[in-house]
């Protein structure tokens, strides 16, 4: 856990150099999401004991959010811990920073639609024509979370972060299969696709982006990371397990 905390602080130091995070840092600390929204993971997931130490008394993650509001933070934390639960293979989603990855992706250029053609007219089109919403990814996320929570309140009586594990599973499966639709919201499946993509990115992208903390995603699959000088290894490791230190960009910068 020591390394984990160290990494978070290091990461925070780096993030403060960025303007969005710097502004947040200068403001009074927001109330940690857990205080008004019981952390959903507490229901069935114990502290990440596989790291050999209990979770820190106060989560440092709330201070690192740059885009998501409190309700959205609770949604995303519940989402990533549901999709990536703790087990022998890895800590849970929030413990490897997937929520932070998502927040920072939405706060940055991609989230703000920097490469998205944003001129109208806006028409729904057909699926073969791809993304056609008048929303940046950050706007889609915000609208999608609001609509998802509204759906969950209507269906289960509580917002997504407060419903039971089995209800979350049912809701997400319905979203993926196109069975859940949002009234007056963005198309539910488009939201799901974006959401799912960002969870996977947060798990498997280089840790410089805030997720895949301690290279936990890469370690699950044995992806060795960025140093790859395999000229000699093609034959040497043909049909043999390749084992090497997993290295990220920061490890060798």
């Amino acid at each position, binding site marked *: 856990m020591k390394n984990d905390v160290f990494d978070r602080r290091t990461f925070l130091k780096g993030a403060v150099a960025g303007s969005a995070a710097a502004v947040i840092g200068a403001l009074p600390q927001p109330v940690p999401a857990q205080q008004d929204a019981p952390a959903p993971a507490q229901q069935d997931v114990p502290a990440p004991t596989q790291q050999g130490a209990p979770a820190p008394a106060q989560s440092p993650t709330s201070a690192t959010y740059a885009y998501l509001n409190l309700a959205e933070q609770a949604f995303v934390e519940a989402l990533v811990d549901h999709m990536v639960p703790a087990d022998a293979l890895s800590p849970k989603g929030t413990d490897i920073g997937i929520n932070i990855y998502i927040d920072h992706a939405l706060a940055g250029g991609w989230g703000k639609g920097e490469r998205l*053609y944003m001129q109208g007219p806006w028409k729904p089109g057909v699926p073969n024509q791809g993304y*056609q919403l008048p929303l940046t990814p950050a706007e889609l996320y915000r609208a999608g979370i609001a609509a998802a929570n509204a759906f969950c309140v209507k269906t289960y009586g509580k917002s997504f972060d407060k419903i039971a594990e089995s209800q979350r599973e049912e809701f997400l499966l319905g979203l993926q299969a196109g069975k859940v639709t949002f009234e007056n919201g963005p198309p539910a499946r488009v939201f799901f696709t974006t959401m*799912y993509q960002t969870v996977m*990115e947060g798990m498997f*992208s280089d840790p410089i982006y805030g997720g895949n903390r301690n290279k936990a995603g890469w370690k699950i699959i044995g992806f060795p990371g960025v140093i*790859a000088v395999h000229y000699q290894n093609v034959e040497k490791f043909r049909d043999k397990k390749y084992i090497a230190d997993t290295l990220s960009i920061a490890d060798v910068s």
Partner: protein
Amino acid sequence: MATKMKEVDVVIVGLGWTGGILAKELTEAGLKVVALERGGMRSTANDYSVPQVRDELRYVQRHDLMQNTAKDTLTIRNNPSQEALPMRRLGSFLPGEAVGGAGVHWSGHTWRWTDMEFKVRSLYEQRYGKNYIPADMTIQDWGITYAELEPYYDKFEYMAGVSGKAGNIRGRIQSGGNPFEAPRARDYPLPPLTTVLASHMFSEAAKNHGYHPFPRPSANASRAYTNPDGARFGACQYCGFCARFGCEANAKGSPHITVIPIAMRNPNFELRTHAWVTKVLKDASGKRVTGVSYTNVLNGEEFEQPAAIVLLCAYAINNVHLMLLSDIGQPYDPVSQQGVIGKNYCYQTGAGANLFFEGRNFNPFISAGGTNVSIDDFNLNWDFDRGNHGFVGGYTIGSGFNSALPIGYRPVPRGTPSWGKEWKAATAKWYQTAMNIGSSGSVMANRYNYYDLDPTYRNAFGQPLMRMTFDYTENENKMGRHAAEMVNDIAKSMNPTTFTPASVRTSWSVVPYQSTHNTGGTIMGTNPRNSAVNKYLQSWDCHNLFLIGANVFVHNASYNPTGPVGALAYWTADAIRNRYLKNPGPLVPA
């Protein structure tokens, strides 16, 4: 008002493979050449060094080296009755931007297209009769032959450091190479890369079926190499960050390490980056072009660059777009079938299977563009009787890894949940124990697959976007079904623990990445009624305008296009140097 620059001999629009080759060749011929590149300058040392270049999120997910669709994109639809809508972000194909273009982030597969393509209509009519080719299939002979292009393929392969094994040297079949390839004067400059386990297993299975596997030729230097121009390549490190990435080892044949630096050392050459060409200018007669208009995208200033010769060397789609924006040649109309600009847009098709082998170690992250093995038994093999299956064209089948980076590549068997503990366990189990077999198929031209200008949507310069109308036809579906069947046949024979079979792609979607092999739109041909350019890629309308790129392909083969794109660039350079300069005018009588 636009600032008028001093006239030069040649202006090149776009500085990737073709622009780089022409810049080098024509400056060496003593011509004053200005290249206008809409992106910025990039170099290996400054932009593609480790560890920053090893960033899947940045280069694959976020398209760092690609064109920015916020500024310019296309509208897309499957057929003329649909309303086309903008491709709001990249997906199906990835045009490059900046110095080096897509030549930086390709994976290096370099093929020689043969008379099987260049004489497509004659060959099929001769063997199967005129009625075999569907009425709406607008294929035609290209007006060029393999024999004419052979020395230029050779030149490109030696310049780009292609690793491979010849299958046919001057008519003598070579063991270990592709026995179906057309005769070549000599072997590749470099031996093939070392194959990986997946290629090896596929190769054995293909041999057991009586097929003829061979290492896929690729511009990944299998050992350190100095090309005939003196450009130095490092040896490929099988790093697994190939397509979408610049190569930090200078092992991937790319224009920014070969032809472009040579041109840049020549005092006859000037490069202007961030120079976005908006129009090719014509004189009053409409029979000559006089230069181009461009905007400096760093400050919005507009310029006019007069030139005696204009070369369009941008990405294939953008070359066609510029022709339509500049009103040169008659736009194609699918109803009357009159006009040529925009005609015969083609793409590619494919089908793939995932094979899972408990207990094997594929190490998919140890890979390169050239670790694959292919078979051509359903492609260049003319003994393969298409008549039994009713299609025109062919497909390759291959295996191996180009890259297997974890955001995009995490194969799991069908029925695996998409998240949760079971998903994690399956992801962990299969990442290193899965391989794939894929086919890549040709797309024949069709009357209703074409480009024109969009009536509604505009780019950052207020110009109409290009509109792409495309879908697969029954011909591709028949071929795709056959390809899927053959892929699955080979896959089953390998006795995987489990496998996800290949299936045919029946309708084109802009969403998932498929291939950056967009061809046609300003096709080459034998006369101005059926084509936009002659066999020297010279515009039939304006003799001092040349269009260089896959936009001149009359249809699309199963092979990757860069081999003939590079060869045609050298071929055109020769035609300009040796023929056009002596007597400027049409090189082929109309």
